């Protein structure tokens, strides 16, 4: 009797899984493209290799459980509106989570306090009460210790099939314990190694945007500049949409370049270049969002009509939809021609546009440097020049055109902000923008 039931259930599960795979288990859409696939013979111009990853649509009801650690700055500078909004945001987070999700809340001033240890979200009212009680501003900003505890709490229940995320909220300079960008980046790397992404939200004009962006960068989280505390809620909602729509984790893109192909640099996302091997890791991929790896290369010289391999691209990731590890492999080759015309017509506009956008992000970083040196006018000039250059790109596809236009207008808004707002604020906006461009995040800027 019992036996037969087991057999039946086994059969059933077989059928179910078969039917699921028959329905085509959703997987990440991966595209590998070269900006100029047909190269003029005997030239060695820069070329761009793009590996694009787009997350599939996810059934909202089937989202992966979240392991969230909220790390909230409660130093005295947070007094008033800021701590209130932070509290509201934390309460909202509690309300958005389900019984399967894990939550921990850590507050820090000169000391760190785990006010809610990592546990499943069961008694929401009690959690909210605890948050309300323990968020009175006081003391200084021990950011390192706060974040350390956050990582520690998030590490308590690590599982492959959940989304691990820390949201770090701060309005001030870290001034207790280790405070350098290098040290906090190392800390972010520790989190990244464990598969935990850290999203950093900087409130007001007082925080260190380089530090906050670096933490987010090394752990592949988001970074946002919250100019007004009132915006915090909207940013939290956006963050939650992201976190709840994670479809793949631990993505690894490795590009093995063919002989005589020289890797120059990675644009946007950072990675590791060793000889002719390039490795880039992404912590997660969100539903319906495109992330890409953009590699600047110098291809080998070739004769007309010749076809030479350029690179072999391997991608692996954990698919949260099928709960399996997926892999992808593709070999890329370039063809050589004598006709400049042919070269031009074969160009992939989208890749060209993205590389131009990434180059513009690099220019934004240069503008930030200029601002730091006090050369605000020159910084504006740099931004303006790169925006105009982007605009001038000969693009015909409407979708690509739209993307370019968005970037240009964002850039122009920033230039306008630089004239209107104080330096600290403009710098933060610029940093946020550059970060989001490099990470291919949709901008949160209003």
């Amino acid at each position, binding site marked *: 009797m019992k036996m037969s039931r087991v057999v039946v259930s086994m059969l059933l599960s077989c059928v179910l899984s078969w039917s699921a795979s028959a329905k085509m288990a959703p997987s990440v859409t991966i595209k590998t493209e070269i900006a100029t696939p047909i190269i003029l013979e005997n030239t060695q111009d820069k070329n761009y290799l793009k590996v694009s990853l787009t997350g599939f649509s996810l059934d909202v009801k089937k989202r992966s459980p979240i392991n969230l650690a909220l790390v909230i700055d409660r130093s005295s500078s947070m007094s008033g509106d800021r701590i209130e909004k932070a509290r509201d945001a934390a309460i909202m987070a509690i309300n958005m989570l389900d019984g399967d999700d894990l939550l921990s809340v850590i507050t820090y*001033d*000169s*000391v*760190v*306090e785990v006010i809610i240890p990592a546990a499943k979200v069961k008694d929401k009212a009690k959690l909210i009460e605890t948050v309300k009680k323990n968020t009175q501003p*006081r*003391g*200084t900003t*021990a950011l*390192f*210790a706060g974040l*350390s*505890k956050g*990582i*520690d709490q998030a590490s308590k229940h690590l599982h492959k099939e959940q989304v691990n995320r820390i949201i770090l909220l701060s309005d001030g300079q870290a001034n*207790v*314990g*280790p*405070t*350098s960008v*290098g*040290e906090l980046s*190392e*800390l972010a790397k*520790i989190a990244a*190694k464990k598969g935990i992404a850290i999203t950093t939200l900087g409130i007001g004009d007082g925080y260190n945007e380089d530090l906050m962006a670096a933490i987010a960068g090394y752990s592949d989280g988001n970074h946002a500049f919250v100019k007004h505390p009132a915006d915090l809620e909207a940013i939290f909602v956006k963050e939650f949409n992201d976190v709840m729509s994670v479809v793949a984790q631990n993505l690894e893109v490795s590009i093995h370049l063919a002989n005589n192909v020289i890797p120059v640099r990675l644009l946007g996302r950072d990675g*590791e*270049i*060793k*000889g*002719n091997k390039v490795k880039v890791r992404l912590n997660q991929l969100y539903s319906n969002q495109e992330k890409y790896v953009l590699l600047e290369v110098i291809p080998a010289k070739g004769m007309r009509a010749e076809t030479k391999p350029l690179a072999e691209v391997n991608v692996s990731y954990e698919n949260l939809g099928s709960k399996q590890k997926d892999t992808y492999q593709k070999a890329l080759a370039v063809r050589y021609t004598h006709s400049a015309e042919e070269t031009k017509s074969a160009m992939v506009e989208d890749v060209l546009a993205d590389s131009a956008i990434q180059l513009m992000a690099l220019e934004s970083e240069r503008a930030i440097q200029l601002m730091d040196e006090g050369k605000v006018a020159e910084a504006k000039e740099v931004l303006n020049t790169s925006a105009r250059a982007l605009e001038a790109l000969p693009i015909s596809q409407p979708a690509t055109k739209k993307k370019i236009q968005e970037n240009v207008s964002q850039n122009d808004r920033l230039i306008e902000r630089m004239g209107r707002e104080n330096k600290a604020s403009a710098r933060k906006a610029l940093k946020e923008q550059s970060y989001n461009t490099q990470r291919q995040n949709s901008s949160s800027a209003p």
Partner: protein
Amino acid sequence: MSPRKSKSLSIAIVIIFAVIGWIAYFGFRTLEHEVLLRHYQAQTLAQTRIAQAGAFIMNWLEQRATRFELLMELKPNDNSTLKTLDDDIEDVFVLQKNKLLYPDESQPLTQKEQEWARLLTPIVQEPSLLYGHSTESEEQAPLAGWFVINEMQEPVLLYWRNKNGEVIGFRVSYVRLLFDVVNAADFHFGGDLLRIKENGRLLYQSKPDEQLSKLVRLGAIHLPYPLSTWQIEYEGQPASTLIIYGWGSLFLLALMAIVGLVVFRFYREYTQTTRLAQQQVNFVSQVSHELKTPLTNIRLYAELLKEDLSAEDGEGLRYAEVIATESQRLSRLIQNVLMFARMPKLNIQPINLQTLIRQMVDTFTPSFQAKGMSIVVSMPEQISINSDLDRLTQIMSNFLSNAEKYAAKGKQVHLTIEKQAEHVDIAVRDYGAGIPEKEVKMIFQPFYRIKSAITEGVSGTGIGLTIARQLAESLGGEILVNHPVPGVQFVLRLKQS
């Protein structure tokens, strides 16, 4: 206030202050000792707790070292796989003499690996740097140990071992150490506070800032190499000493107050007694004064009566004589009392003792003879002294009249003058019943009279010797009492100026 009274008051004050001072001094010393003890205990506790926290941090290093030692036992041939053996290993190097085997700079390296190789350059050039910090054994180079490069903003922490001429080194993430310490540090010492600092930066504090008021540092240490930039501090509450001093002082004050009160009480009792005696004296002297005038009249008329009566009126003459003698005696008594009450002015002059003694003997012989007594005098030929004649006479009279009154049955009285080196002794010795030794002290007290058969029926004021002693003291002398058998000897000892 009489000088006598103020003197006793000042003595009382001195005693009170001495006792209070003694209590205060020793009490305070005890408190100090107690505070020191508490302080010492607190410090010992602080040291223990600091050591505990220090061991906790050093343990992190020890654990890694042990693990790396194990890994090296299983060392694979491919150096590049060393790095993947343990999560805590951030980087690896293999060094042979002055040649870096891994990372191999002849192969393509990532940017990170190139930086790592660059960082190792000083060690590659001078491998002895690795143990240069340990000074304990210079001849024998150690084979393993920790090494830290502090030049960078973020210190580089290495564990290395020399194995068959190859030095294998593992780099552990310094931030990882900070991270683990921050997360694992969990100390609760009640009201006390423990801080862990790295290079002056606060890593861990066992309590929030707002609860830190009024703590004092009880101890601080630097960790040993390679974490010599790390410091552990311990702070505690100093309040306990205040409590000891507070309550201790309160107790001492109470004790001093009690002692002061007791001494004052004694002083009060003593002054009350002397005041009472003074009142007695005053009363007696007033009464005596009042008696003087009628007594003079009585004496005068008794003398007149004596002259008027002839020898034929045998009976009458005898009565008159008795009246005259008795009134004379009464007059002498009153004189004594008045002398005691109000001492006349001192009048020092050279006195020929021979003359004085002769006069005294002449005066007393009739009354002695009447009782069948005789005076035997023995004295040097020529002797004189600087003194007050009246007072001397008074003292001598007292001695002689005492002998007459109380030692009549001894029949003889010896009066001797002896000249010593620094003083002159004038002694009167009788052969009567003598004075019991325990009573000797009492006889000098005012109005004290020995109660015995001798004094029975003999009139006396009880202040004769008191006055004699006062007078002797006022002359810078003293009265000694000897007990020859039989009888008693009173000696007036006067200094020879």
